[in-house]
């Protein structure tokens, strides 16, 4: 798994709440058996019109957000389906972090497994950043070691990440390998519980 320590990048604002994983990656792209190549399908129905042309009103299609690697959005991002394809699509498109007031549970757990950092900030902080990112190109530094988001001109905001998730991300840990180190305990549990 890819680790996450510090990342600096351009912010793309997506000013919507409750963005569900059906929007992040629609069902027609879930039929593949690989983990890669989903970036082109990210936000497909919002990004493209029925004829497949880029929708000029969608932020990711704007020139000023080309190359964005940090997505800034509304509360409850990633709700709905458990499809990890949503995270694969965000990563494949080039996002390293998503910043929002809150995230859905399965989505944030999927993010950790793929080195995508979810940063929950206060609604006021989100509003400040949203206004700035909508007006102009905004670069942010996301520092997981310090648990801090900052700009070059002095904006800073602290965030918290559950300790186990933070460790997994910082170390890019192979979680299965880690659990398998407890093989003896798992076997003992199976004997004890007769399972």
């Amino acid at each position: 798994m890819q680790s996450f320590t510090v990342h600096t990048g351009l912010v793309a604002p997506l000013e919507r709440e409750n963005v569900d994983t059906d929007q992040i990656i629609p069902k027609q792209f879930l039929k593949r058996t690989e983990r890669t190549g989903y970036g082109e399908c990210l936000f497909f129905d919002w990004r493209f019109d029925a004829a497949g042309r880029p929708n000029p009103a969608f932020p990711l299609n704007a020139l000023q957000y080309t190359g964005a690697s940090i997505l800034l959005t509304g509360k409850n991002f990633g709700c709905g389906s458990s499809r990890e394809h949503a995270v694969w699509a965000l990563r494949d498109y080039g996002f390293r972090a998503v910043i929002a007031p809150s995230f859905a549970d399965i989505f944030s757990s999927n993010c950790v497994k793929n080195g995508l950092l979810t940063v929950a900030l206060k609604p006021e902080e989100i509003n400040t950043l949203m206004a700035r990112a909508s007006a102009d190109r905004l670069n942010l530094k996301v520092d997981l070691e310090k648990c801090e988001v900052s700009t070059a001109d002095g904006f800073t905001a602290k965030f918290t990440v559950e300790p186990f998730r933070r460790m997994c991300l910082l170390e890019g840990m192979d979680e299965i390998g880690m659990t398998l180190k407890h093989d003896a305990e798992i076997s003992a549990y199976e004997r004890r519980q007769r399972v």
Partner: protein
Amino acid sequence: MPARTLFEKIWDNHTVCAGPEGSTILYIDLHLVHEVTSPQAFEGLRIAERKVRRTDRTFATLDHNIPTIGNRMVIDDPLARGQVEALRHNCREFGVPLFDLEAPEQGIVHVIGPELGLTQPGATIVCGDSHTSTHGAFGALAFGIGTSEVEHVLATQCLVLKKAKTMLVNFTGQLSPGVTSKDVILALIAQIGTDGATGHVIEYSGEAIRALSMEARMTICNMSIEAGARAGMIAADQITFNYLRGRRYAPKAWGEAEAHWKTLHSDPGAKFDTTIEIDATRIAPFVTWGTNPGMAAPVTGVVPDPDRAANESERNGIRRALEYMDLRPGMRLEEIPVDRVFIGSCTNARLEDLRAAAQVIKGYKISKGIQAMVVPGSQQVKRAAEQEGLHTIFRDAGFEWREAGCSMCLGMNADRLQPGERCASTSNRNFEGRQGAGGRTHLMSPAMAAAAAVSGHFVDIRKWQYKT
């Protein structure tokens, strides 16, 4: 021992050991697998040269991608076919039992688990699918996981987790006639929002819940995820035991199992992080008007006015939803006309659901121009319904009678809405494009969807003239 909640009891019973940084390594009793979220997990095992730890606790079925009509062994879509074949191949290679398309047990993963008696009180159950919360109706801890976690469970039969918070939702009083468990859960989500239970495991309790059948309880737990909950659960009782007894995978040492299950309830005085009380007597039949399951109202109500929203972001959300749904503020919900009706999905395609819908349409024809279909949740449901003659009632009324699968709940197969089509659906998600790009979904109970097929618009089922 201090008073514990049902969730805490199951958690304690399944703790293998502490993991790093305050996490817990939790044992998983049952792992259900389907074709869409598993190929990359099996591939991961293959690359790392790992095996499936418990092939006796892992069961696979085909449901999301498959045709519900015609010769199901022939799948035209090459990508869907590839995924189906990948699951067959993976199950063979790793020794996982598969309920394939021609198997009498095949069906939607969350319908067949309970039917086969695999779903049991007190168990930990996972599947790479968010609606795994369905199984919580049996007093199990059941939740959806992503593909990386599917791989983790295949390899270790465990997950590394942080304990969730707990929420008690207590319903006082009884439901009124015509009001179903679908209305109960839609009413709850409308009240607390689609993120109202994020980070929590919900336990449902109270008189109204106790009176429900297992099938109705599954509908409620199924949609817990639409309130953002990690899982939903209902303590097992005599209704649960009666449902399970004699099913294929139900415990053979029944007396011992039942005695243990009887201890699995929240102790008096157990502390929940959040508690909500709802007066069940006041719940009306609900329909959704927007693009998430929280955008719902009593069928007697009207489409909301964005200008009366509590704040700017809510106003924008409603505006966007009404634009997508092509609805005007103030419109009466009963006036909204429909083009399609879908009775199916893991929320509402069990025998009881089909019976309720059939009772409504008996003696009626569906309205002109409407296309309506019934997709049973499993082959077993389909056979049982046919034995009762329900398929004849549906066909006589003008419904299509299909084979079991997820079908138009998510439209991964050919069953899809066309852009602009409006559908009365018994499924669980009304997200933009969920049932087909540009399609407009309204969620409701099976009886309400059936009545909409006949009337051509939404109706208050409490006023329905049954012909029996």
